[in-house]
């Protein structure tokens, strides 16, 4: 190999830098957030599994339905009607942003920009 003296150390440095975040934490991802369910309600608009993986999809769809199609008919679960809305739907049960949004988002390093525009009691101002 031409220039092996340069290429091999270069590759080693490159791999070391690229994997820095992994070995820095030594495979430890930090404490897993404790999941807590809203009190007094047993059923969400979709299954627990679906909500865990795809709640952002639900919000996306609702946003388009409400904003673009003008469809604001509430979603009914076990006789309870929920607005197709983060603020006026989801957060009626999942009341605390800190507990129900931030904890997992911080853990997974996800930064949704909902709160740039939407209001959170106490936290917006």
């Amino acid at each position: 190999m031409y220039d092996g003296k340069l290429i091999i150390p270069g590759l080693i440095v490159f791999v070391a830098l690229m994997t820095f975040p992994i070995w820095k934490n030594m495979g430890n991802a930090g404490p897993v957030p404790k999941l807590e369910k809203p009190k007094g309600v047993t059923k969400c608009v979709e299954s627990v599994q679906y909500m865990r993986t795809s709640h952002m999809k639900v919000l996306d769809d609702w946003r388009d339905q409400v904003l673009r199609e003008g469809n604001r008919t509430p979603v009914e679960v076990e006789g309870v009607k929920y607005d197709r809305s983060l603020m006026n739907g989801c957060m009626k049960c999942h009341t605390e942003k800190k507990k129900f949004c931030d904890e997992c988002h911080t853990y997974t390093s996800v930064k949704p920009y909902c709160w740039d525009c939407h209001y959170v009691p106490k936290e917006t101002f």
Partner: protein
Amino acid sequence: MDIKRRQFLKIAGLSTIAGLGAPAAFNLLLKGESSPVSFASSGAGAEVSHDAAPTGVRLGMVVDQRVFDANQGLAQKCITACHLVHNVPNFGNPKDEIKWIFGVPYEKAFPTMSHYHRDEHLHNSRFLVFCNHCDNPPCVRACPTKATFKRKDGIVAMDYHRCIGCRFCMAACPYGMRSFNWRDPRPFIDKATYNKEFPTRMRGVVEKCNFCVERLVKGLQPACVEACGSSGAMVFGDLNDSHSEISKVLKENFTIQRKASLGTLPSVFYIV
């Protein structure tokens, strides 16, 4: 070896192109949302079809300048009502300025209709201007992401989540009714009057009057109309409904529209 590699690259390249292009093409063909839009005619059909909406609703507004002239301060009440209910920030400088509804002299609101020897009262009048919710909106035609679109009821709406901030709609609007969030608006909204039921905007998106879409679903009138009280200075309703109050007002009065010659078909009418 060399030929094999070349063939591999060819196949890989072609499948990448196919993989990238196919979903978009399928989306275009299969989804109704982005059905091929004709760009010759209205262009307004970016979101809904070109035919008249099934319900036939076309919301519009009449501004009676005679009432505003008789009630000094009423216009300011409308402006304040709107800007409070929609959390419109106040930057205090014209460069960053955001406004949904504001007053301008006759010759600025209607530059194509200015002339010598106009009525005396027009010299001091300030006309309220806001989004015309055109039936044929140039801003909707220009938007590259359908972030601004025309609803079935005729309202030209904004989807702030989708806006990329290219400001093509601002260049396209012949009325200067669109504002851009040049910086984070939140610090410039008065905490004391903040409306918790309506979102603020983020920096980098365009905004404008939305005909109070959020109030209409609750059965309320637009905030500016409500601020006029029973004065009748502003009348809001369905232009296509021949029994609506607005249709009655339009039948009985001579009205003008801003730059009607541009063919945008504004939904806002003025009684001078």
